[in-house]
């Protein structure tokens, strides 16, 4: 797996949301993408997943240029994502939610029964198998997050973008999400993890990319990024002491 962004810019009218961002992710890395509110994290994920088209710059995935391609095409190429605000298919059952990416998968040769069995396996892992006939609208916020993650397992992409997976989730369910990320990682997948939960992101990430006002200000191992003056300034402001905000140990 190789994702490469070359000088990607996204402007909305006069506002530059992403400003010349370039980086490469190779292999099964777990990369944390952080930055203060409005830094351009979600815009960047929307650009990678094809929901937005860059104003300029190039995005390459596994040797193919994908910027400007429709989201279903990019999904078929192997990039899966969740959304900051959960977007489960509310008037569909949990099982149907999971079947959607399985059936949509390009070149899928599995029967519906096989996919259902696969979906049940995933639901068991997420401890949601008893909810398979439940409409997604009846699930709690945390369960809907898990459902989104389940859909990604079903989709089985090479690169997974997790946008705020821990936000608003009960600590008990957070544990399941931790396990999920580890399991996905063990399968050799690359992950881009976006989170405001610094503890989690510093614990899980092997590499951190930091955005501020749409510009990439740091890229490296968490220990290194943590000490970066620009990062400290972005989070704490110029006159503040560097203190407890960034965790001391990864």
């Amino acid at each position, binding site marked *: 797996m190789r994702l490469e962004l070359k000088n990607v810019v996204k402007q909305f009218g006069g506002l530059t949301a992403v400003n010349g961002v370039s980086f490469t992710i190779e292999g099964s890395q777990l990369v944390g993408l952080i930055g203060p509110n409005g830094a351009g994290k979600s815009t960047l994920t929307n650009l990678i997943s094809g929901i937005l088209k860059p104003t300029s710059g190039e995005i390459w995935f596994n040797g193919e240029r994908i910027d400007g391609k429709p989201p279903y095409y990019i*999904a078929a190429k192997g990039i899966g994502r969740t*959304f900051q605000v959960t977007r489960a298919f509310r008037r*569909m059952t949990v099982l149907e939610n999971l079947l959607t990416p399985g059936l949509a998968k390009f070149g899928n040769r599995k029967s519906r*029964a096989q996919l259902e069995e696969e979906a049940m396996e995933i639901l068991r892992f997420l401890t949601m198998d*008893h909810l398979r006939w439940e409409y997604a609208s009846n699930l709690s916020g945390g369960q809907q997050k898990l459902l989104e993650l389940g859909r990604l397992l079903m*989709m089985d992409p090479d690169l997974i973008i997790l946008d705020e997976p821990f936000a608003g989730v009960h600590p008990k369910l957070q544990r399941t999400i931790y396990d999920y990320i580890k399991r996905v990682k063990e399968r050799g997948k690359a992950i881009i993890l976006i989170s405001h939960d610094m503890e989690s992101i510093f614990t899980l990430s092997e590499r951190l990319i930091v955005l501020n006002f749409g510009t990439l200000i740091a890229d490296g191992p968490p220990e290194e990024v943590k000490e970066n003056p620009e990062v400290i300034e972005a989070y704490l402001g110029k006159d503040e002491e560097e203190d407890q905000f960034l965790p001391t140990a990864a």
Partner: protein
Amino acid sequence: MSTLRQTYDRYLPVVLGVAFLLALVFFPFFESDSPYWVYVGANALFYAILASSWALLAGYNGQFSFAHMAFMALATYVSGIIGRETGIWAMNLSPWVSIPIGVAVAGLVGLLIGYLCLRLRSTYLALFTIAFAEILRLVLKAEIDLTGGPNGLYLKTFNLPFLEGLTRVASTYAPMYYTMLVVFLVSLAVMYALVNSKYGIFFRAVREDEEAAAALGVHVVRVRILAFVVSSMIAGLAGAVFHHSPGIGIIVPDEMIIGRMSLVIAMAVIGGSNNLMAAAIGALFLHFSLEWLQEIPVPDALMPWLLQNQARLEAWGLGVGEVGLKTNAWRMVAFGILLMVTLRFWRNGLISPILERIMQARAKEEVARGRAAKAGKDLADVDKLVVDEEANEGGQ
């Protein structure tokens, strides 16, 4: 007790389905002395096809179109024009040939409209389709040489010699009724095959959240256009077959007026637009109810009282008929109130929740059966598994 419940859950949908089918098949024989009601039955089936195909588009795929009657009329006009013996574009084709061509044209125009509507949602989509339907209606009305204008286009009717015998034992309208019944069953079968395929899941995923569906690999453009084309073709088929039927043989542009379209939408909504069968049953029920309400039969003993108060009743917009009370416009008021109450209290319609409840019990059993089979257990254990699962879920 639980085994009894399992048996009940397992066979209830089958029993109800067979009963419904038998009622539809034998209806003309029950009404053999009343051809009018058989004619109403054929009309009801026509609306049932329209309502269920609209439900496919709006209920399953979230595309709220007002152009459904326009596609119905388009296929009928195309079939009628190319089928006639003389006139512009006349090809003197048999209805068996001209109807499929009309349906194909409806599908092609559906493809075009579906493509043009790709970026339109809710109100904008509704307005776009209203504009299309009104333009088509006005063109059909204005092009008198081609379409017959406001007086309508006379169509060749098809003959069904093998159904002729039914006119003697059932009703003069029996051939028309059975033709519509076949189209109804075939249309439902096609739509059910579609919604039970992967496209059914995609339809609903796109309805729920287009961006999320696309991010999971669903080809949103293809799915939206497919829904538009299939529902347009089915509406076209219903229209063309119905109007070519012996006993009809004419179509007028005002069949496409927005009031008729609204009636189809209301039928689907009251039945339940998220379920094809519910929308169809809703249309059947409402069409029969509206016809029955035209003149509500009253006991003979009450007729003198009605006649005595005829003037007062007429002042209220009611009337006295041969066998009972004529409701005139009030039946539509009742229909409107039913629609409002349904939208306020039963967003999923009146029939759909009942059907879902019946089918869900069966689905649970199917899962348990699959699990038992996978685990190599005897299928006799299925009942116990279902009970266990229900108990587990009840305890959640």
